[in-house]
Each structure stands twice: as C-alpha cells, then as structure tokens.
C-alpha cells in the first residue's frame, strides 16, 4: 500500500518570528526546519511499516526551494521517496489554497493512507488534515494519540472534546497524530547517507493542473489587516522567599481582588 506523509518546513518556533509587510509570514530572517509536530507523523508512518504493513512511504511538502531540507530530514529518518511542490505562484497561499495543492499532489502520487501532524508549529490552525480529507472525499481520523493499521482499517484513540474516544475508518483515509504518540527517532548516520540517494520529485502547479489564480496570496480567502507585535509583558516584582513568600503572594492576589 501507499502511505503519504505531509510535512512542513517552518520558521524555528524557538526564534523571534514575525511578519512581512503584506501580512505573510517572514521566512527570511529566521532559520527554518521540519515542523516538530510532523516528526510524530513520520515516526508513526515508519512504525506502521515496522508493524508488518507492507507499504511505500512518500513524503510530501509544499514550499520554497529550501523546504527540500524538511524532506531530507524525513528521508534520513526512513521511508522511500519524496515529492516537493514548488512554484512562485504558491507564495502566500492560505490553508484552503495549500490543501488544494496537497490534495492534488496526493492524488497524483496515489495513496491508501495520508498521515499528518496535528498542526504546524507556525500557522497552528490544525485544519489541513480535515480539508485534505474533504477534498479527497475520504474519511478523516484525526488527533490520534495511538494509531494502528490492520486489514485495511485504521484504528486509533483520541482525546475528544469531552471524552476519550476509540475511532476507526476503512482505508483510504487521512489521519493526524499528536505529540502523545511517542518520541520520534533521530536520523542515524547511515540514514542520513541513505537519504541522499532517495528520489525527490519536483512538481509545479502545471504538473498538478492547478491554475495559478486558485492559490497564492492574491487568491487567499481571508486577509490580514494588521499584524502587531504584542508589547512584551512588563516584568513585575519578583521577591525571594525568606519564610513569608506565600503570605506576600497572597497579599498581591488580595490587592488584585482575586481573594
């Protein structure tokens, strides 16, 4: 069977991130890397294969030239090949545009199972898995803390909004996995060397038969009117406990009328 893992190349979440003048994410002044939450998706795809499911793993990313770095890292962890969709007209695409590109690329590659992280660490909307499933017309099994594939059925456990749920769907399906699924492996030296020989297919919008006016900033279905840095919180009083710390803290809370 065919597993497609969607990954995203994002500005480092531990750096000072910001915006360009047109309201798009500034990807120049901050180093980028494979989104941490996508590592869990890669790990689960690899574990599904290691559990005995015969499958080929393809990584898919949409992004500028250097987004290939995210694919190399994924391939170093394991898996077989990768697809990189890149086109000048893609820049500034919102989730609806991006989901269209991903869905077209997934259809072109062929799939039984699409694995995504629970959200990106930059946009953090967490809506792409549902949008991809909607566009592909297949079930979604999202926010899984545990996942297994057996006999053409994907099963998992998720923390729903009010209860813990066990869910299942027949393949083909789109799943997303959380950071609770277990630590992702580090690429080994052997893995890094092997990744250099794994094929990365380059595609543009023409290859996917997408009109350039369907995606990109100008086709975005919402627009940013203003992005302002929040004023840094002013650091308040910090005292050292010399036996009265709890009393002092209570006095502060009382002054603020919390007590």
């Amino acid at each position, binding site marked *: 069977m065919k597993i497609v893992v969607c990954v995203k190349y994002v500005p480092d979440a531990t750096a000072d991130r910001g915006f360009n003048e047109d309201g798009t994410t500034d990807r120049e002044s901050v180093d980028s890397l494979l989104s941490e939450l996508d590592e869990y998706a890669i790990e689960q795809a690899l574990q599904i294969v290691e559990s005995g499911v015969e499958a080929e793993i393809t990584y898919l990313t949409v992004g500028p030239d250097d987004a290939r770095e995210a694919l190399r890292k994924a391939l170093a962890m394991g898996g077989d090949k990768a697809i990189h969709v890149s086109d000048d007209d893609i820049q500034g695409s919102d989730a609806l545009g991006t989901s269209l590109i991903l869905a077209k690329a997934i259809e072109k590659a062929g799939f039984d199972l699409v694995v995504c992280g629970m959200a990106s660490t930059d946009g953090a909307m967490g809506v792409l898995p549902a949008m991809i499933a909607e566009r592909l017309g297949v079930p979604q099994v999202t926010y899984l803390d545990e996942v297994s594939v057996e006999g053409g059925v994907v099963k998992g456990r998720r923390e729903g909004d009010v209860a813990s749920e066990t869910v299942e769907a027949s393949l083909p399906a789109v799943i997303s996995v959380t950071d609770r699924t277990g630590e992702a492996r580090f690429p080994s030296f052997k893995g890094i060397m092997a990744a250099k020989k794994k094929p990365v297919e380059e595609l543009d919008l023409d290859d996917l038969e997408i009109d350039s006016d369907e995606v990109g900033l100008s086709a975005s279905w919402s627009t940013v009117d203003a992005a302002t840095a929040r004023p840094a919180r002013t650091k308040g009083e910090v005292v050292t406990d010399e036996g009265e710390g*709890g009393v002092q803290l209570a006095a502060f809370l009382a002054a603020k009328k919390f007590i």
Partner: protein
Amino acid sequence: MGEILVLVDHVDGAVRKPTLELLTLARRIGEPSAVFLGKGADAATETLGRYGAQKVYVVDAAEVDDYLVVPKADALAQIAESASPAAILVPSSADGREIGARVAVRLGSGLITDAVDVVAGENGPETEQSVFAATYQVRAHVTKGTPIITVKPNAATPEEAPATPAVEAVSVTFSAAATGTKIVATAAREKSDRPELTEADIVVSGGRGVNGAENFVVIERVADALGAAVGASRAAVDAGWYPHSHQVGQTGTQVSPQLYIAAGISGAIQHRAGMQTSKTIVAVNKDEDAPIFDLVDYGVVGDLFKVMPQLEEEINKRK
C-alpha cells in the same frame, strides 16, 4: 442585520460556556441563530434563547453522535446553504476547527481559526488572533464567501439578551463520507468539581518542580482555595504525573484566564504559547533565572512546597 449561525457546543443538551460567548459575539455582528446538533435540544433551547438566539435549528440524527466530524459538517453546511447567513461562528475545539475546515471547503468560504475577538467591520466581521506563541496580534477578515470563524474560549463575557427562539427541525441529507469514521467507544473523563481548564477565571498549574504525581495535591489545594482549574506543563504530563487533558501549552490547551499561577514551571516556549495571554501571571520557582519570571506580574523565588501551602493557608484565612 444578517443572520449569524452559531454552532452549539453541548453535552447531551447541556450548553457549554463557549457557546454563550459565541452568541454574545454574534449579536455584535448580526442576529444569532443557534445550530444544535444531536440530542437534548429541548433542554438547550431556553439557555440559547436567554443569550439571544432568535432561532434554533435542530438536527437530531444518530449520525451526529456516532461518527466523527463529517455529519456535523454536512448539517452545518446544509443549513448554511439554505439560510445564507452573514457569518458562521464555531467554537475553537478540536471538532469545531475541523467542522469549520470542511464547511469552508464545501461552501468555498474563507476560514479564520482561533479568534480571540470578533467585531463588526467595514468588510464584514473583523477578527483578532493571537499568533506565534502569543507574541503577535493579528487583525484579519474573510474576503470570500461566508466568513467562517472559530472562536477561542474566554473571547467574551457571556451577556444575557432574552429572546424566545423559533425552533426549526432540519432533516439533513448526509454525504457518503458521513459514516466514514466510526466512534467505536467513548470513555468519559473523570468528573471533577473544578471548573474546566478552558473556561476557568483562574488556573493554577504545576510543572517539573512538582516532582511526582503524589505531590500535585499541593497544586490542587491552592486551586480549590481559589475555585480554580488545575493545569500542568508538558514535562509534568509526559512524566505521567497529571492527565494529558490538563496540559497547558502549544500542543495542549491554550488558556487565557484572569489569573494564571505557575508553580515549578520554567516557562519553555511550548508552555508560554498556552498561557501568555493570561491577564495576570504569577510564578513560584526555585530558579531565579527561570524564563517564566520574565512574564510575571508577581513572582516568588523559592521552594513551591513551602510557598504554595503557605499561600493556601493565607487564602483560607482571608476568605
């Protein structure tokens, strides 16, 4: 004023607080109609009316409870197609965001997620979002189709505006995909007398410094003295000291209470992303260089096992 659809978040007809906040926000931008999916509409109608719902659309179908997300998206999309609302507001829960996502694709409409405020603007509803670990505030609006906006809990204070809503039962034609993902079993989480994390005015959280599941009682006692919810950092949850449903942070719950008390939490970016928009922040930590102290309105450098019990005692004394 245009009709605003508000998707109701409820448990067997008990309406959850974020829905009341959505109805309050909806009145700023139009006339709210509630969309109630599942069982218990009779019990919910009075509450929905009290907070200003002029109309309640009811879809009572087994599919809604038995299958994940898609039946709810089918129902909301179908109601939206016939009502042609001016906007659709959905709670920013895991399900809510995904329902919004599918409806957006289906209606060809723009989607804004995790709004912390919604106001009427020149070009339709204007939203405010808090992004990049709450270091930026973004104002945005939808430019195509029916604006679909998911709204975070605590975005508004619920205000009553009593109305007697017209109730309209809607029968939905479910899509072939609706029954694709079956909910095979559910296990309710342990009921607690404490307020829910997302809805609480005060949150008291413990982290690595709590050093063991058995020590969390120190955090819980302060929380109970204040009528607060209990939170935990990812480190504490990963160590198995407290349930995941209490995790505050980027990949857990994002909270925005009036008061946030962090005990034994260093303040890694992962955690800050989940609590940085709290109105007042207080921390207790034995490391004076912990990054959490950069955010605090008041901080105590000290042993949480000495400071927190003393705080609890003092709160009870002052009551």
